[in-house]
């Protein structure tokens, strides 16, 4: 079974985002970029499936700008076998919408015929939480979102999902799309020898047009602003003073 893992290049989670003065979005020029943390968990899970003999090949895919090559090299260094980069924009500030990404992924799936797609549950830039569900819909497949446990057994997979107030376990027909949540695993770090080896692994470059997908957005960005700042607070001198202030504020 082939496993496809879509990965997204996003601002590193340790970087403070700055809104651009013209309101068109967040400044992405000269900022440290990394693989979306939820996608790292998806890559890790795919590699573990291969190590357990349940997958034969792990293919990492990224849709975006040419610089997403680096993100794919990270996935290859972790242990993915090969990578496909679909260039859908020349501008690092253009975010490709989940619907477009899902359509391009559908094109790749039609060619590659994987048994499983593992995605992060959301990207930490646009926080849309949509690509996996949309892909599943376009394929007419089952879906299992927010997975914290995954067990594949032949024609079906049993997935435990993190839902409001607890956990839900469902059984889905294969092929399927699983979106992963934090508790599923802890991603490995790529070792230096594996980083070197990753440079020699195959990375195909395609464009959105290769899959017949129109990448123009459905949502026009009208404005982007910083959230309202919190008013500065005060320092208290002791635990007793803290309790007093909390009581005054009606917090305890």
């Amino acid at each position, binding site marked *: 079974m082939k496993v496809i893992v879509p990965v997204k290049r996003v601002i590193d989670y340790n970087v403070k985002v700055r809104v651009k003065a013209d309101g068109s979005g967040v400044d992405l020029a000269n900022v440290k970029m990394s693989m979306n943390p939820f996608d790292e968990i998806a890559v890790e899970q795919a590699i573990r499936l291969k190590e357990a003999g349940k997958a034969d090949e792990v293919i990492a895919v990224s849709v975006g700008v040419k610089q997403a090559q680096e993100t794919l090299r990270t996935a290859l260094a972790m242990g993915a076998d090969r990578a496909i980069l679909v260039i859908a924009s020349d501008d690092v500030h253009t975010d490709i919408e989940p619907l477009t990404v899902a359509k391009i992924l559908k094109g790749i799936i039609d060619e590659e015929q994987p048994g499983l797609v593992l995605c992060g549950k959301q990207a930490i*830039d646009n926080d849309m939480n949509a690509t996996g569900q949309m892909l599943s819909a376009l394929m007419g497949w089952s879906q299992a*979102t927010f997975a914290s446990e995954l067990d594949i057994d032949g024609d079906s997979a049993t997935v435990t999902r*993190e839902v409001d107030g607890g956990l839900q376990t469902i059984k889905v027909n294969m092929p399927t799309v699983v979106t992963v949540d934090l508790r599923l695993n802890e991603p490995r770090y790529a070792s230096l020898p594996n980083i070197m080896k990753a440079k020699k692994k195959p990375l195909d470059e395609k464009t959105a047009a290769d899959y017949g997908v129109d990448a123009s957005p*459905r949502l026009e960005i009208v404005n982007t602003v910083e959230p309202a700042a919190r008013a500065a607070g005060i320092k208290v001198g002791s635990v007793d003073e803290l309790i007093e202030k909390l009581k005054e504020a009606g917090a305890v």
Partner: protein
Amino acid sequence: MAVLLLAEVTDGELALDATAKAVTAAGALGDVTVLATGATCADAAAEAAKIDGVAKVLCAEDPIYGKRLAEPVADLIVSLAGDYEHIVAPATTDAKNIMPRVAALLDVMVMSDVTAVVDGSTFERPIYAGNAMQTVKSSDAKKVITFRGATFDAAGMGGSASVENIGAAADPALSSWVEDKVATSDRPELTSAGVVVSGGRGVGSEDDFKIIEALADKLNAAVGASRAAVDSGYAPNDWQVGQTGKVVAPDLYVAVGISGAIQHLAGMKDSKIIVAINKDEEAPIFQVADFGLVADLFDAVPDLTSKL
């Protein structure tokens, strides 16, 4: 201009607060028709009919909707979609599972976690875990939206809408329910708790996290942790508050031994009152704290727990 609103129904029971908040948000868009689904949903539909601003309730009762699996519920919504310009839901994990599927089947984008309605096609939503707010205008004929509850007041309960029973759509038979495990902790759930007490790397060990838990129990609070504490193995991953964990906005957030990394602040800065206890007075957490206490947490936290 009609709106179809997917009510939050779990095992036949209406999540009234979540649904009524979404009704408030949807009211700005047009007449609201609520869709209740479940193996049983008559009671939930009757209750939804009383929410102010609801024009009509559709009740789809069928075993295939019993656990609100995404595939059958999405197919049902798509079968009804012709009559509506907006298809909306409260931003729960259930709806976030279902609504993007609906949007893709309709060949439109979804807008998740919307916090404000500007007009019928323009909406505001947080990006980067709330570190920026973005206003987007949809060019799609139909708009599929989830509304974040925290920013809308719940609609009142003076309504008397009619309830219409509707048939089920075809069962796609792609998935099946196995079991639910409702969280068994005696503590409140992290994302909906009124009070959250979180520990960071400063707590120092898994064992010492007990003093965080003791304070949390005194305040009837959920326990959270910074990513640094989780990465150090002091706390389980599902306690993580931050951009890569849970986003919380309780009435009171107590950050103990947390320096205030950007990615943590993104997950808790919308809390009403923030208390920070840290021995490093330069820690960035103090810049967002309403009340900061520069102290050794191993003295201050047990003292606070005993005096509250």
